[in-house]
């Protein structure tokens, strides 16, 4: 428990440090004000920027909805990276797994003809399955041939990208009357219901039940890690593969298990975007989510709760960033800077330690990165 608190402290300090450096950037890039030598105005810009950041993420129901909408795929994809980290693997393939899950979910979403709620559930399961199969590939390759998962998952991202592009142009997926890579729409009853349906049909409340699915997956991940033999084996393998082998665990099979699970989580991320947000698929379906998920997992130290919280934080930054851009001249790109800074401070615990003059071991902090050993 003490250990958890300690790690939370580092994470919080990293976020604070990133906010601080970003503040500095906001002030010195406020050229208009600085040219006049008007530091006070620059500081006021800063105040307004951070205030809008907060307003735009948690300040209203609409803001909260936007935060949740952004957080949903990040949380699921973040779990995909976290579960792999736990087993000592570095899953960079969340993007590809999302696309795979998005496309299988989409297909079940428009091709199957079953009544309402069953249709959504089947489409989600199809998404999980598609992602799982796609995620299992690098797992099997690693277990069988030792091929490093970092390489194979990156390559498979390209495979998934072009495969999706091609599929979207086939007769099966193509939307009638469109020549670009846009899929046909899913059935109305395959849609994930809105989270705030009770507020009426407000179009600005886009948050959908995918968020609940994501929270369910967080709980599932927690249960798996802490209450099952498989979870124990995954953790032992991730922390010390030699010892796991000595203890009689089948570490190779565990790699496949971990990557399959990772794929399933990412597949759900893709499917929930298709079924909950867009209602169709495009080649840019996964966007940068697969990569942002790595930052989410790092920030959350690969724990279930941590991943959930950092996904919400990233969702909030995204939502608040838009507001910030509207209210001030600070571009939304600052959010990317801010997120990058957070990751940098997370990855450099010694730096954070030195900045805050903390004593104590930051060593265990690097644990997340053990996947690199190959």
């Amino acid at each position, binding site marked *: 428990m003490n250990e958890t608190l300690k790690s939370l402290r580092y994470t919080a300090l990293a976020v604070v440090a990133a906010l601080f450096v970003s503040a500095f950037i906001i002030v010195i890039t406020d050229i208009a004000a600085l040219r006049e030598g008007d530091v006070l105005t620059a500081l006021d810009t800063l105040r307004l920027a951070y205030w809008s950041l907060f307003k735009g993420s948690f300040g209203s129901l609409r803001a909260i909805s936007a935060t949740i909408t952004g957080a949903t795929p990040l949380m699921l994809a973040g779990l995909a990276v976290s579960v792999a980290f736990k087993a000592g693997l570095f899953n960079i393939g969340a993007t590809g797994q999302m696309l795979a899950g998005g496309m299988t979910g989409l297909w079940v979403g428009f091709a199957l003809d079953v009544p309402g709620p069953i249709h959504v559930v089947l489409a989600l399961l199809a998404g999980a399955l598609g992602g799982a199969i796609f995620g299992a590939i690098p797992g099997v390759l690693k277990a069988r041939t030792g091929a490093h998962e970092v390489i194979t998952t990156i390559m498979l991202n390209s495979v998934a990208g072009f495969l999706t592009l091609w599929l979207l142009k086939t007769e099966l997926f193509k939307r009638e009357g469109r020549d670009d890579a846009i899929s046909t729409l899913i059935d109305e009853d395959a849609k994930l219901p809105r989270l705030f349906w009770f507020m009426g049909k407000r179009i600005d409340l886009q948050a959908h039940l995918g968020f609940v699915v994501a929270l369910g997956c967080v709980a599932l991940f927690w249960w798996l890690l802490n209450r099952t033999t498989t979870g124990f084996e995954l953790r032992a393998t991730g*922390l*010390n593969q030699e010892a796991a082998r000595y203890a*009689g665990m089948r570490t190779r099979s565990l790699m496949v298990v971990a990557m399959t699970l990772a794929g399933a989580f990412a597949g759900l991320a893709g499917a929930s975007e298709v079924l909950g947000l867009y209602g169709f698929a495009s080649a840019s379906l996964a966007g940068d989510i697969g990569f942002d998920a790595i930052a989410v997992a790092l920030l959350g130290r690969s724990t279930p709760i941590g991943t959930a919280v950092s996904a919400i934080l990233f969702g909030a930054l995204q939502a608040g960033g838009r507001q910030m851009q509207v209210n001030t001249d600070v571009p939304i790109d600052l959010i990317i800077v801010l997120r990058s800074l957070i990751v940098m401070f997370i990855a450099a615990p010694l730096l954070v330690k030195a900045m805050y003059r903390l004593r104590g071991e930051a060593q265990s902090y690097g644990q997340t990165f053990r996947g690199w050993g190959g």
Partner: protein
Amino acid sequence: MTHASATSTTYELRGITKRFPGVVANDDVNLVIRTGEVLCLVGENGAGKSTLMNVLYGLYRADEGELRIDGAPTVFHSPADAIAAGIGMVHQHFMLVPNFTVAENVVLGAEPMGRAGTLDIDRARTMVREVSDRYHLNLDPDAVVEELPVGVRQRVEIVKVLLRDARVVVFDEPTAVLTPSEILEFFEIVRTLVRAGRGVVFITHKLKEALTIADRINVLRRGKVVGDADPATATESAIAEMMVGRPVQLTVEKKAAAPGAAVLDVQGLSVVEPDGRTVVDDVSFVVRAGEIVGVAGVQGNGQTELVEALSGLRRAAAGRIVLDGRDVTHDSPRERHAAGMGHVPEDRQRQGLVVDLTITENLVLTRYHDAQFSSGISMHWDDARAVAKDLVARYDIRTPDPEQTASTLSGGNQQKVIVARELSRDIRLALAAQPTRGVDVGSIEYIHARIVEERDAGTAVLIVSTELDEVMALADRVLVMYRGRIVADLDPRAVSHMDVGLYMAGSRPGEAAGAGAGAAR
């Protein structure tokens, strides 16, 4: 490097205190090091010996206290300062580039330059030869380091520090990797160094060696110097008591063995490395119920691979392993566990434990799948915790809470976790590799007693250790391994340490007297 012997120098550490988060590694330590004598620093693991030497060598800055050289206060900011002030260090793990020659290694970092900034390797060769001759180190400057035995590599390290003008040479556990005859040669070198007016600091936990070579002995316990001992009058048990803080049983007390039926039957076992080297070569032996068989040998003669083959972590290239009447040659580690094999692995941090998991989790690491701890994929952590609590009490594992990670334990207590886990199962064979390596004296005493107890309960025990003393004290039968083969099967009561040492070096007692020295070359 020539004038060091002309004058004597005194290095004095005064009131050194060095704190790490949660521990005081050195607590107001005073130490005097003089050229021309051997100072032995003894203490258990974690007593602060290495920290103290790292302070002396400029790797750590002391929180309090000062260093005086001939009375003048000095501060070392880095090892470079320490080297400049005449301090040399030979680490336990050698810092050599394996595929470089002796001369190349020796000059690495201080290469003699020819014209146009090229490496003057001839001068390097001459330098090595000079030092080697002067101190009778017998080194060939052109030999490639990876082809040299450990004892010779150590001499390369010694030349390295001598060439950097060391007036005091610090040796950190120098004998851990040496055979008994290499140890004697090493002592000869130490005496030569001292005669030449250099000082030697010798860090060890082997009391016999301290008594043999030291002019003065300082005992460290929990970061403090708790006493001095005069090697002329002190006894091993008196020093051990100072080290541990209570009287210690240094010998293993056991009754004569009453061997029963064969439990482990190994026939013609061979292990081949991927590169084609045969590391275990046609090994056959039997371990019976109720006896302890010890495998002695210098590190790197196939013991590690033998144990890995027996435990199922490595494939046997040839041969048969029968455990309790069942052929387990092709069984997985888990199947062997189930067949009654308990295994205390050689490297507790790398294999025996997942140090970032809790003590409870580590205590069930090899048995979490038993019906006692899980059904289907559902873990019964409550039951695991109950068993862990019991084991922590029964095996005297010192921890405030078994839910803390194993990394919070000292080496000795970590080892007790493994011993508790492996011996508390229902086993027929206990396979223990280096069961007390890096473990404090108190824990050694305890682990040895447990192993003997296990034997008396009718378990077959196989001990593999590079500590000859340990094998001789524990085993009822001693096998010696050399270059992958078992070269001797001896009765420890009927054979001397020196003779076993000769077998370990690949010769046979009674052959040429210089055999040991020859093997070390």
